[in-house]
């Protein structure tokens, strides 16, 4: 099977078109702090990126990397206290979201800027019918009448392939499966024609066959509406198959960014390289015990006790004294591919 995997590189150039599209969301030097018993910690530390119309940008990282806090900061959903956006700007639709009042943000959320979460079950109110929850936002944001909103909701449900939508509108969340609920969450999120959809681990709670359905659906909707999607995930496989560009985060910082092809073919940060090597690859397993997976020694450092210099230095096999003393800047390593590492040139390609 492995030879099939190797040879059948059917290059479908779906990822090339977003390059000169309009920027819809720009995050500049975002910093988010949390107060903890052990003092204030910076969960997101100086993250900047742009999201272009019609592209799928993946933000990938392990737990504690700050990827979810980044998305919540953009949405203005950081609980305050203990959280606080300590600096930076988020440009969307010609305005800086960090300067908006809750009321103004509320207007944007769910209309031109919407979000779906990991647990569809807990994101919906169990005592309200699906129809009620779908039409609420539509009526509020699009100013439709009850009847129009209902018809729009039916149309949206049809679009996410829920059978018998007129009938199912009357049902309650517990009558749906997890995959169906995530479809409904997507339908709700897409119902007011958002420019940006933030999907925070949308398939992590779902089975792999259902995950395939949902990812396919998200790509279809992107193609249909031209919305930009920010996909937060920990799964490199999902990134490779779904996204156009990828940002890798580690301990609150962006450490690498580039097109998915570039980053997977030749990662310029040892952490990214390590993550790719740690993954068992379908169809590439040798005899059991012959090949070891790549281990990244140690654990992600606690935000209260970060090593000086490069935050990955104490786990990195390439690290030198320079890494332990000076923080590497984000530099362009190849066109459209940036990384923060002093030793990018020494990295080998992933196997």
């Amino acid at each position, binding site marked *: *099977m492995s030879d*099939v*995997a190797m040879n*059948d*590189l*059917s*290059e*479908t150039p779906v*990822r090339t078109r977003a390059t000169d599209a309009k920027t819809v969301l720009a995050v500049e030097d975002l910093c988010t702090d949390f107060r903890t018993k052990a003092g204030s910690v910076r969960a997101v530390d100086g993250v900047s990126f742009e999201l272009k119309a019609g592209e799928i940008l993946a933000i990938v990282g*392990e*737990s504690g990397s700050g990827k979810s806090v980044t998305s919540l900061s953009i949405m203005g959903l950081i609980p305050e206290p203990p959280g606080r956006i300590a600096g930076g700007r988020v440009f969307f639709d010609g305005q800086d979201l960090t300067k908006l009042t809750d009321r103004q943000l509320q207007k944007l959320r769910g209309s031109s800027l919407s979000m779906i979460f990991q647990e569809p079950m807990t994101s919906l109110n169990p005592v309200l019918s699906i129809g009620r929850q779908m039409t609420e936002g539509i009526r509020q944001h699009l100013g439709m009448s009850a009847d129009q909103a209902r018809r729009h909701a039916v149309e949206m449900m049809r679009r996410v392939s829920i059978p018998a939508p007129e009938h199912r509108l009357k049902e309650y969340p517990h009558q749906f*499966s997890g*995959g*169906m609920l995530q479809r409904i969450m997507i339908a709700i999120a897409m119902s007011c024609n958002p420019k940006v959809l933030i999907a925070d681990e949308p398939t992590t709670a779902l*089975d*792999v*066959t*259902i*995950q*395939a*359905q949902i*990812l*396919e659906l998200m790509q279809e909707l992107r193609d249909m509406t031209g919305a930009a999607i920010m996909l937060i995930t*920990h*799964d*490199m*496989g*999902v*990134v*490779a*198959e*779904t996204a156009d560009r990828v940002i890798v985060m580690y301990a609150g910082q962006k450490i690498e960014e580039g097109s*998915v*092809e570039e980053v*997977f*073919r030749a990662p310029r940060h040892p952490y990214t390289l*390590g*993550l*790719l*090597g*740690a*993954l*068992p*690859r*379908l*169809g590439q*397993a040798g005899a*059991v*015990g012959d090949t*070891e*997976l*790549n*281990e*990244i*020694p140690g*654990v*992600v450092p606690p935000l209260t006790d970060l090593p000086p210099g490069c935050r990955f230095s104490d786990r990195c096999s390439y690290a030198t004294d320079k890494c332990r003393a000076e923080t590497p800047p984000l530099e362009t390593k190849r066109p459209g591919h940036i990384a923060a590492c002093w030793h990018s040139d020494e990295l080998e390609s992933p196997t």
Partner: protein
Amino acid sequence: MTPAPVLAVQGLVKRFPMRGGRFVNAVNGVSLEIRPGETLGLVGESGCGKSTVGKLIMKLHDPTEGAIVVRGQNIAGLSRRLMKPVRRQIQTIFQDPYGSLNPRMTAGAIVGEPLKIHGIASGRDLTRRVAEVFEKVGLRADQMTRFPHEFSGGQRQRLSIARALIVDPEIIIADEPVSALDVSIQASVINLLIRLQKEMGLSLLFISHDMSVVEHVSHRVAVMYLGRIVEIGPRDMLFSNPQHPYTQALLSAVPVAKPGARRRERIVLKGDVPSPVDPPPGCHFHTRCPIAEDICRQKAPALNTVDGEHRAACHLRAPDAPAARSAA
């Protein structure tokens, strides 16, 4: 001839009673065996019954029907007292690295507990053995006095492994042992498991939903769907030449961390897994199967030989052909 299995499960059935006199058919006639020093991977999606199979073997539940044979002894009906010596042979690694360690016990006490329970060691001897096994799983002996919450997720899973290994078992049931861990940590735990298995000649039942992980660790693999095994066989055969449409769909749905490298056309299954309270008649998979025919709706397929030990329960892909059987 293949060596005698250390564990064999025959016709295992588990029905959980529900209100209103109905049943959840969690496991519906599962037979499998694990041979000495071998890892059997048990894969399937949530609700397929793979974890229940594990729990039945651990005797956390009593099976409704069927036999569980450990070294020639059927343990399905054994009392708690008679089960105790068997428990030493079968150890368990649980999924949740946070929940499976008693938060009020020190790491050393947790790992040493099986020795106490089985009266194998006490006092200084116990401490020495605990220290040894700590080292074996990559922990430091001075960490014995710490409490579970002072360890990271990966270290906790190492504690779980240490607890399982300390009584020198023959069989380890590992129920999703790495699915709660981050990728980089997951890799080190998988490497450790494989290494220890080789060293100690353990037999492993590795229950997981992750096809890539199962492929990496298993010698043989069984795929479950709605309480039944739909395909079983040596790993390489099953992964390179899957016969059951469900296995094919499952494999094709796994996202591959290589942009543009789709192995084959992704088979996106329609709909959801039917309820195990009311499984469809005939082949359980026919409601979602892209190739189902009339016979699939009427008759449940048996596990038929595909090639040698590779067997699949499909009327259309692995028909019960005597020719194929004699050839093998």
